[in-house]
């Protein structure tokens, strides 16, 4: 178990007379347990490092760290005894602590305008999205609404202005499944001739600002968790990311979770271990068929998003409800 606390104070000055000061505190709670039976091992955590938020002791309260030990340890032991995830297509219910990774890798990075312009081709990669797709590409089903939202106080990348001094405000990037706006700061907007957002960010004094994700969220829908589960005939619930891999154009992905639970005829059934799934971003979001309501939403994020040459690692926020996807290729492990 660990708790990380970071204080950041930043002053932005420009020859045009701008004077902007931001002081922020970030709290990263972490708890994980590994169970071992002499051959296999299974790790269960409290969201890995993804429960970080801005704030103080309130962050510890919100994330449920206090008293979580027995439950986390019990789940690690359950996983050790559980069968492997069965292979084949199923409806997939992703909880927010996996949705954040899904958003990050297969919406966030592909919408970064500097990637689309080709700046990252030697390192982080390109994008399957083209500049001409904005305003015309149906990225997902009509249920998909994605926002750049710097105004949620506890979320990791809430801020008043980016590192180019541009004032930040909430913008829809995808509305009812239609791609409308990229993640691009002032310079990339000028180069591409597209409207963007205030996301030009540097990880510190020794690196230049580049287009980064900030708070990239999925707007809640109207279904409770019970309704989401109740609407699944043959499916699986997956929770808490543990593995992530995606191609350099952010299209073909394979992700793994710590916790899996089968769903049959609208009811949660047995626990399964090593739950993995794979798909293609360009198709996956079109299979979104149910979005949880605000009651299923969690405000999460990661302090470890890497990109750029020279390399930069930066904090980003992702708030998401639980979501259901149809007919996804799922599978287990070897052990």
């Amino acid at each position, binding site marked *: 178990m660990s708790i990380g606390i970071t204080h950041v104070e930043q002053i932005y000055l420009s020859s045009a007379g701008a004077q902007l000061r931001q002081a922020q505190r970030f709290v990263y709670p972490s708890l994980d347990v590994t169970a071992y039976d002499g051959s296999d091992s299974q790790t269960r955590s409290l969201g890995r490092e993804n429960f970080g938020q801005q704030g103080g002791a309130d962050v510890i309260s919100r994330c449920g760290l206090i008293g979580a030990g027995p439950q986390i340890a019990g789940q690690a032991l359950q996983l050790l005894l559980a069968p492997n995830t069965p292979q084949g297509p199923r409806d997939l219910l992703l909880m927010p602590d996996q949705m954040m990774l899904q958003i990050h890798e297969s919406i966030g990075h592909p919408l970064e305008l500097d990637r689309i312009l080709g700046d990252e081709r030697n390192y982080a990669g390109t994008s399957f999205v083209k500049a001409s797709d904005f305003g015309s590409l149906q990225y997902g089903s009509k249920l998909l609404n994605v926002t750049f939202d710097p105004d949620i106080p506890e979320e990791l990348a809430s801020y008043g202005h980016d590192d180019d001094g541009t004032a930040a405000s909430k913008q829809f990037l995808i509305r009812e499944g239609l791609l409308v706006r990229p993640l691009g700061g002032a310079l990339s907007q000028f180069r591409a001739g597209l409207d963007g957002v205030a996301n030009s960010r540097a990880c510190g004094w020794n690196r*230049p600002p580049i287009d980064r994700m900030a708070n990239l969220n999925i707007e809640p829908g109207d279904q409770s968790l019970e309704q989401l589960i109740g609407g699944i005939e043959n499916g699986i619930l997956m929770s808490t990311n543990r*593995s992530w891999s995606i191609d350099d154009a952010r299209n073909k992905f394979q992700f793994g979770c710590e916790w899996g639970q089968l769903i049959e005829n609208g009811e949660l059934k047995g626990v399964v271990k090593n739950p993995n799934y794979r798909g293609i971003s360009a198709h996956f979001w079109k299979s979104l068929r149910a979005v949880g309501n605000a009651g299923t939403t969690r405000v999460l994020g990661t302090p470890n998003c890497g990109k750029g040459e020279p390399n930069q690692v930066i904090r980003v926020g992702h708030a998401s409800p639980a979501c259901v996807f149809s007919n996804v290729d799922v599978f287990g492990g070897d*052990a």
Partner: protein
Amino acid sequence: MSISKSQVETFKVLVNWLCDAVREPEQFTLSYDAESSAFVRFYHAKVRQAGQVQQAGIGLKLIDDGRHADLHITLSGEQSTDLQRLAEGLQQLRETLPLLPQDPYLLLNHNGWQSQNVQEHPLPDTEQVVAEIAQAAEGLDLVGFYAAGPISRGFASSSGAFGWHQANSFNFDFSLFHENGEAVKASYAGHEWSSEGFARRFQQAREQLELLGRPLRTLPPGQYRAYLAPAALEEIMGMLCWGGFSAQSIASKSSPLQKLYAGDQAFSPLVSLDEKISGSLSPAFSGEGYPRSDLRLIIEGKAGEQLVGSRSAAEYGLAANGAGGGESPSALNMGAGDLPQAEILKQLGTGLYISNLWYLNFSDQPAARLTGMTRFATFWVENGEIQAPVSTMRFDDSAYSLLGSQLEALTAERELLLSASTYSQRNTSSALLPGALVSRLTLTL
């Protein structure tokens, strides 16, 4: 863009001040990191972004009565300012220590060891490098990144230990893109820039680029013979090094190589892997204050030594061998095989020639099962001849298969790959690796 020759003297001033300032029974360790880096980013064969970063910092650990606390201080380069920051840092740690419990796993090295390694190869002028790159890439779609300059690492302790490591290096990491979107990746890195050496490396990449112009082939998922070039194998080794050889991970059963260390799995007898610090770019001492040893990690397919940091040594009753906090190798050296470079395509016959892999992760970590993508120059080969570039594919396979039952041969020639990573600071890790011919690689998507 050079670190002043008095850099080591600057560090010594801080160390001497600290030696005078600590009060019995206080003890300290002081680590030092500095670099002066030219960073140039290329886009469409032109400079997209250029910068110069000079940075220096120290890590101070204060120990008293089994308690310890750490502080990182950014240095300004002004001696009086830096001594003031150090004094304030020392006071802050003195006030913090009584609030902390004793640490049962604190293990200090009380030896007064001495180590010095200074490599002062002259670096080329950045403008000259940029001009050579621009000339070589004329008419090509080059994207890349040049990083160069001196790096310094230091360590001192109240027990009298003192280590100093300083090296000049450069790394030009680049890609050449064909107009069809396919690309070849290459790098030219080392201590001494040679115009001829760079031209040769660039020409090799250019020749591969020509092959990428052929019509793209899309493969169905399935199992294929494959050759993994050293840069592709480095990605696999990098995953295995992510906790694989860490004493802490092995003991806590979170190592991807726990079955190897338990004796339940083995790699091919062809596989021998060392951590060879001596002669590498990495410092010969750790930030914790232990001299680093050369280690035999895998011996003919079987588990060998582990990387043991001081905390693991204290917790698990092992001998510390200079591993850093993450207990990851930083100077991999894999034994060569007997497959000549010139015979690779012939021995492959029909299958995949994979130059690079990308974005690997575990599908099943305890089983060392990995997934990842092909990226950059991957070719379909038939009867020993390159036929076509292959569209991006995902693989999912066990390391015990790829480097075990399915490993046919390793190349006789090895390639020294220097890390191009610049997260926080320029990385000094390296890998000397052969290529690997495998009889079965599973593609899934």
